[in-house]
C-alpha cells in the first residue's frame, strides 16, 4: 500500500510538471489527445477566433479538457466550447473594454447560468460614477452563479449580490452569504426565502459599519411580543 502511494506521487509529480510547463510556455494547455483530430481542429478554430477577438483562449482549452474527463462525446464538447466562446464575447460587450480573464470568465459563467444581460451590466457598472472594484465584482459573480445553482432565481440572486456589492462587501461576506443560505436550504427553507433573509441581515451589518469600518453602537432589538 505504501509502495503504491510512493509510485503514485512520483507519477503525480511527473504528470504535474509536464502540463504546467506546457502551459507556462504558451499560456494555453494543449488539447487532450483523446479528442478526434476533426474535433481538435474545430476547437482550435474557435480558439483562433477568440484570440483574434482579444478574448481569453485558455478557458476554451480548459472546457475541452473538462468535457473529456466528464466523458462527454466530441460533439458535446465542441458545442460547449462554442457556447463558451460566444459567452465570452457577450461578456466583453457587457462589461465594456475589459481584458481581465477572471472577470470575463466569471461574467460568461453568469450569462450561462441565466442572468439577463441588462441585469449583469447594471451589476458590473455599479452605481453612477462608482463601478465596483474588480476583485469584488469577481467575488460577486462567483457568488451569484453559486446561488443560482442552489435554485435561486437569477433575478433575486443578482439583486442580492448587487446589494452587497454596493455596500462594498468583502470576500468573507460573500462567502458568509453563500454558506448561510446553504445552511438554511439544507434546513428546509425555500431558496429564495433563505436568500432574502440572509441578504437583509448582511446588508444591515454592512450598513451599520461606519466609513472607518467600526461598528456603530445600536440599542438591542425589542424582545418578540409574547403570543
Amino acid at each position, binding site marked *: 500500500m505504501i509502495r503504491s502511494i510512493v509510485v503514485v506521487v512520483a507519477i503525480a509529480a511527473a504528470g*504535474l510538471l509536464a502540463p504546467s510547463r506546457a502551459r507556462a510556455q504558451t499560456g494555453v494547455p494543449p488539447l487532450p489527445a483523446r479528442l478526434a483530430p476533426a474535433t481538435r481542429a474545430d476547437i482550435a478554430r474557435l480558439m483562433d477566433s477568440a484570440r483574434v477577438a482579444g478574448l481569453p483562449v485558455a478557458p476554451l482549452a480548459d472546457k475541452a479538457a473538462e468535457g473529456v474527463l466528464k466523458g462527454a462525446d466530441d460533439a458535446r464538447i465542441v*458545442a460547449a466550447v462554442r457556447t463558451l466562446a460566444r459567452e465570452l464575447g457577450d461578456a466583453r460587450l457587457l462589461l465594456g473594454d475589459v481584458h481581465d480573464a*477572471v472577470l470575463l470568465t466569471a461574467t460568461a459563467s453568469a450569462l450561462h447560468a441565466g442572468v439577463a444581460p441588462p441585469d449583469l451590466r447594471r451589476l458590473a457598472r455599479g452605481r453612477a460614477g462608482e463601478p465596483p472594484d474588480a476583485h469584488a465584482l469577481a467575488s460577486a459573480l462567483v457568488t451569484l452563479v453559486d446561488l443560482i445553482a442552489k435554485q435561486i432565481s437569477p433575478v433575486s440572486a443578482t439583486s442580492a449580490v448587487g446589494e452587497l456589492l454596493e455596500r462594498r462587501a468583502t470576500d468573507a461576506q460573500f462567502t*458568509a452569504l453563500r454558506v448561510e443560505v446553504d445552511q438554511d436550504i439544507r434546513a428546509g427553507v425555500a431558496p429564495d426565502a433563505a436568500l432574502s433573509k440572509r441578504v437583509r441581515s448582511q446588508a444591515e451589518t454592512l450598513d451599520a459599519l461606519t466609513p472607518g469600518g467600526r461598528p456603530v453602537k445600536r440599542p438591542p432589538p425589542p424582545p418578540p411580543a409574547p403570543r
Partner: protein
Amino acid sequence: MRDDDVLPPELERAVGPLREAPRPRREWLDHVVEQAAGQRLGELIGDDDWRGARSRRWSAHPAMAIAAGLLCMVAGAGGTYAVMGRARGAGRPSPDVPALQAEAVGRAPVRFTVAAPGAVNVSLVGDFNEWNPVALPMTRLGDGTTWEVEIPLAPGRYTYAFVVDGRLARDPSAPQAARDDFGAPSSVVLVRGAL
C-alpha cells in the same frame, strides 16, 4: 388479467431456447482480455453509461456530500479551504511535490480539502491540471476522513472537482460552477493576485 411474468405457451416454446447463453469464440474472448490488460483501470467513463431512473452518479454519495458539507461548516466558513481562493499557508511547502517550488514564482499555495469517509482514492482535477485524474492525488489525514492536497496556483479563476474512487464530486464548501453542458457538477476557486 394476464400474469406479467409468464409468456403465453406458444411464445414460451419459441423464446425458451433463446435463454441459453451462447459460447463466445475463444479468439474473441482472448482479444477482449488482451485489450483490457492494455488499458488503465480507473479512467472515468461517461454518465451515458448509467442513463436510468437513478439520479446521476456524478455527485458523491448523498450521505457523503452532506457529511462533507457539515464538516466544512463546522470547520468554519472558508476555514479548511479558501473559498475565494485567499492564498494560505505562505511559506509552507508541500513535501509531496517538491519540484513545483521551482515554478512557484507568481503562485500562491492553495490547500484543497474534502471529507470522503471510506474512500480509497481521492484526487483533485481542474483547469490547473487539465482535468487529469491521476496528476494530483490527495492525501488522507489522520482523522481517516479528510483528504487534502496543496498546490501553487497563479491568480485566476479555476473550475475544479474531486475524483472520489472514480466518481466526480464537487467541493461542497466551495461555490458551484454554472450548471454546465456536461451534466456533472464542478466548483470554482478564485485565487487572488498579491495586493
